[in-house]
């Protein structure tokens, strides 16, 4: 930056400090004024309805100021399926301040809060969280998170849809701690091969990591049915009837889809987030958070075990209005306080400012959520086919350091270079074996060498895309399933990987992963809100980062040894 005075131009003179501030990345972000009439407002809008509920003959006949015959389909669905009719009138009549206090009071257990929240209307829920500042919201999240143990989810994609890269990065991601890995495509026809790569790579890195491939419903479901992927997440829902219809769905079609996934033993969660409705110009004059609460209750009513929210792909909208990130933190809390698994966003490029990017994640990272990011880009953002995440591979060491600084478990850990190289190499070889077994276009030794040491898709030899696409098509045509992957791995001598994948596949027969917030631990124990319920009851209780896990998180790339300060540990 220059300190010399600039040549005077026609423009009025500017202070040197202003010039420096003007040049700060945060000023590349966009900010707008609120416009409540149109719903361009985070969570404080006089146009949101006042809470009200009336029950007649075991049916809700009035909801937030609307009587049943004026219900749009969101009202109807929420009234019929989401709200507990028996307790509705009593709970909604409780003072909002009392419910808000229950949320942060260590003396009130999670179950006691759920007993109240299941009877609340959308407007009532909004009325409650509006009373809470961001620290209180974090306090509430700490208690209401469904699973006791927090976790994290990663994105593993490739700008060239290169399956070898996806496999290697999935292996590294799994090794670094992601409990779930998600991929998607630039060229959709590549999906089967990349999904296979993700599954194989993940099981190399850490047995039991769950994978998914975000696609249009039909293909996503088919890959899941075949056991090539293990769960699904990109089933979008919206807070107004008109936008829901624009998305060519209704609460009933989505509920049917939810059951379809469960009927194939596949874990699934919906996706929603503040800002999507106003982004599409049909917010019907309601605040972003009110509409998101309707989404959350709709998901609850559909009987899905969880929800991905936290604005997600619309983060630029709440990010630009006053109090926007408070609303985003609140929507995560609401998902948790109605007992849904919450994969809490932090998954889209959000700001030019590193400081803002970090701050944005604190309300999820510090209290901990079921998945702090949904997900964290475990590839360089240039390779991120979800249009970039809030964090990527360059941030690994910063993330690990923040975990260590605050003694907070963000789901990741530092891993030594040699372990990472070994995993990446093995993943590429395992995939090479599977491709050979399935007669897919071969993977060369050069590609394996590249995969071992690569950072981005530019570091790999180019694939014969046409041949790959033919291969991908044949995977679908020949009805390849997860079982074929197991066979390929086993016959090529990758016994451990084959065993890992088979165990994951076996889980769909047991259905254990269908329960709320379920993940698979390293020893293949299903860990869900049932057998790992959040038992936070104040200081010293609930999940604490300690013992072996804490020892893991104390390790960084460079830590000076106290026994011999001339050396580094780890």
């Amino acid at each position, binding site marked *: 930056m220059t300190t010399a005075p600039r040549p005077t131009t026609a423009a009025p003179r500017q202070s040197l400090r202003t010039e420096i501030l003007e040049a700060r990345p945060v000023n590349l972000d966009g900010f707008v004024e609120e416009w409540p009439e149109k719903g361009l407002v985070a969570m404080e809008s006089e146009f949101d309805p006042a809470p009200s509920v009336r029950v007649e003959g075991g049916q809700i006949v009035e909801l937030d100021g609307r009587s049943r015959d004026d219900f749009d389909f969101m009202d109807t669905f929420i009234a019929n399926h989401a709200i507990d009719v028996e307790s509705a009138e009593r709970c909604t009549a409780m003072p909002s301040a009392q419910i808000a206090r229950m949320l942060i009071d260590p003396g009130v257990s999670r179950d006691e809060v759920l007993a109240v929240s299941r009877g609340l209307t959308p407007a009532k829920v909004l009325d409650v969280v509006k009373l809470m500042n961001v620290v209180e919201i974090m306090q509430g999240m700490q208690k209401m998170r469904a699973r006791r143990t927090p976790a994290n989810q990663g994105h593993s994609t490739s700008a060239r849809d290169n399956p070898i890269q996806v496999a290697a990065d999935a292996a590294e991601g799994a090794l670094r701690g992601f409990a779930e890995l998600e991929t998607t495509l630039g060229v959709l026809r590549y999906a089967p091969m990349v999904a296979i790569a993700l599954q194989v790579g993940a099981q190399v890195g850490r047995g039991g990591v769950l994978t998914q491939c975000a696609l249009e419903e039909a293909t996503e479901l088919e890959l899941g049915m075949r056991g090539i992927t293990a769960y699904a997440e990109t089933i979008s829902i919206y807070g107004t009837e008109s936008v829901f219809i624009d998305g060519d769905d209704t609460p009933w079609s989505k509920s049917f889809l939810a059951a379809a996934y469960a009927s194939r033993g596949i874990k699934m969660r919906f996706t929603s987030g503040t800002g999507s409705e106003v982004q599409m110009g049909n917010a019907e004059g309601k605040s972003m958070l009110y509409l998101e609460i309707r989404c959350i209750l709709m998901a609850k009513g559909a009987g899905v075990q969880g929800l991905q929210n936290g604005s997600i792909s619309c983060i630029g909208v709440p990010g630009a209005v006053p109090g926007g990130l408070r609303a985003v933190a609140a929507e995560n809390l609401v998902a948790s306080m109605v007992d849904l698994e919450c994969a809490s966003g932090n998954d889209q490029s959000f700001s030019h400012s590193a400081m803002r990017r970090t701050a944005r994640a604190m309300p999820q990272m510090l209290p901990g959520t079921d998945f702090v990011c949904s997900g964290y880009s475990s590839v360089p953002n240039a390779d991120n086919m979800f249009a970039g995440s809030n964090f990527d591979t360059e941030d690994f060491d910063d993330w690990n350091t923040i975990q260590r600084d605050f003694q907070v478990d963000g789901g990741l850990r530092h891993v030594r270079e040699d372990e990472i190289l070994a995993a990446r190499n093995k993943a590429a070889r395992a995939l090479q074996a599977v491709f050979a077994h399935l*007669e897919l276009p071969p993977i060369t030794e050069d590609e394996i060498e590249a995969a071992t040491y690569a950072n981005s898709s530019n570091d790999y030899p180019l694939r*014969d*895309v*046409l041949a790959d696409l033919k291969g991908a*098509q044949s995977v679908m045509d020949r009805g390849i399933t997860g079982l074929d992957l197991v066979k390929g791995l086993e016959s090529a001598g990758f016994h451990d990987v084959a065993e890992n994948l088979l165990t994951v596949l076996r889980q769909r027969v047991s259905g254990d992963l269908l329960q709320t917030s379920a993940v698979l631990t390293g020893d293949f124990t299903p860990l869900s809100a049932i057998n790992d319920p959040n038992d936070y009851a104040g200081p010293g209780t609930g999940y604490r980062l300690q013992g072996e896990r804490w020892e893991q998180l104390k390790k960084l790339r460079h830590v000076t040894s106290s026994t011999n300060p001339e050396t580094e540990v780890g």
Partner: protein
Amino acid sequence: MGAREGGPLGERLVVGVDIGNSTTEACLAVVAPDGSITYLGTDLTRTTGVKGTPDNTEGALKAIRGTLTRAGRSAGEVGTVLLNEATPVISGLAMETITETIITESTMIGHNPTTPGGEGLGVGTTRSIAELGERQPGEPVVCVVPHGWDFDDVAATLNAAVAAGVDVVAAILAGDDAVLVTNRLTRPIPVVDEVSAVEKVPLGMLAAVEVAPPGRTIRTLSNSYGLATVFGLDPAQTRQVSPVARALTGNRSAVVVRTPTGDVTDRRIPVGELVLHGAGKTLRVDVDAGAEAIMEVVGRAQPLDDARGEPGTHVGGMLAQVRDTMADVMDIAGQPDVPVSEIAIRDVLAVDTFVPAEVRGGLAGEVALENAVALAAMVRTSRSRMQLVADLVSEGLGTAAEIGGVEGEMAVGGALTTPGVDRPVAVLDLGGGSTDAALLTREGECTAVHVAGAGELVTKLIDSELALGDRDVAEGVKWFPLGKVESFFHLRHEDGTVEFVDQPLPPHVFARVVVLTADGPAPVPTRHGLDHVRRVRREAKRRVFVVNALRALRQVAPGGNLRALEFVVLLGGSALDFEIPDMIADALAPYGIVCGTGNVLGTEGPRNAVASGLVRAHTARLAEEARCPTG
């Protein structure tokens, strides 16, 4: 024909395996004691590794197991596995441009903007639009407009100048604005646009700008005497500028600037001499003499022992490159490398082609079609490693495996199982790298030859002549018929017929020339029309397969006389092509030859000839031994 359960004693189960360049085929059969053969089935898989190397084992085993499972037999029952002796011909390709067009001192702008403006011829002195105001009336001016000028401003400036009496007769624009500007002019003039390097146009020089009406081509600047007239040239100068005229032929618009020493040369690049050893002679031919000359000399050097290129020349490099790759292919771990000297080039096919190349010194990215020669070279090696493959197969399967015979001969045997075929029969195996011919005489003698050039070369020619720069697209153009998507609901096939569809076609093929692949139309990224693409495709096939068919058959035909042949059966991957068989049949018709695509075993089409031939040969040998037992 189904699998016979059990069967009488002495029945033998044999598998013939043909390892080709791209596919490995297996044929399972039962040989009864009386020598009668019952075919139980066939299988086909991708060849693993380079033909003739141990890597082939995996593919071979896969194909064998394939047939066994289909026929419900087990490896244990197999008596013998028969492999083909792959005649170790491996082919390589190389292409060299032998001409290049160079423009010196920017005398010519010969590019063809899609939308020039105005019509007619304008001759005047080149002046920058910036200094138009200063021109004195009367002087004819060709206005040169640099980048960054808005079309409205250009038109206004020109109109003002004209109003002030400046005689603007033509304009040369940097941007794509010719029509926009002419539409706004008070006095119409010819305008050439999209001259990207407009700043290099020499100012203050006499220049001519010509634009033809839509659908026409220029008349004056593409005619040497037209140029002479415009610039007042004497015969010597006229001779000098004749390349300019030639370079501009066929354009709708052009600019020629008269500079003192400016010139367009069309020079031949010395590519070097091809040295051919054969028939006890050593013959030399300049590669830039073109394909015809080369092939004529190759013909005189038959049978070819080796071909080399003058070291240090392009052709030297071309052939050396081919040799080296062959050497690598034949290297065996743990064994001494194959000395490059052992690798003899036993046939060469030269094909004239052209490569669109950017003109050196051009001002608008002019492209000229440069002549080029493509060479397909075929290498024979003294090492075959099929025996090694046989050993590995036997090991992997736990049964005996042997070399059952040489490809060519086996192929004829298999071809004979085509209904309606009898000796003497010749087969043409249209492969990827080489075109093979074999003849089986009435007396049962068999001769086989291999000539360089086949499917791969066709693909390369299509790729370069259409400037696709994408082998896969070229492959598509080779394999599938063409069409033009005329609306979302109908497309016109290359034969002119129209096909209507009820589901709208995908947007990315709208209004495009497409290849009609199995999974729908795929766009061909080219500016050329359907007819041009079709012509290039058929020419490439003709220059390779028709030429090679005749070459190869002449080499096996008694006394090189094609009329002595009766049946010609086409085999191999390219025999499945939708037009090559017809092209070859047409070419052979005049010689009274029955030619068609084989139908091995009456069921397999042009496939599996070698594999089933192996079985026949094996059976014949058994019969021999039965008649005169050895020892």
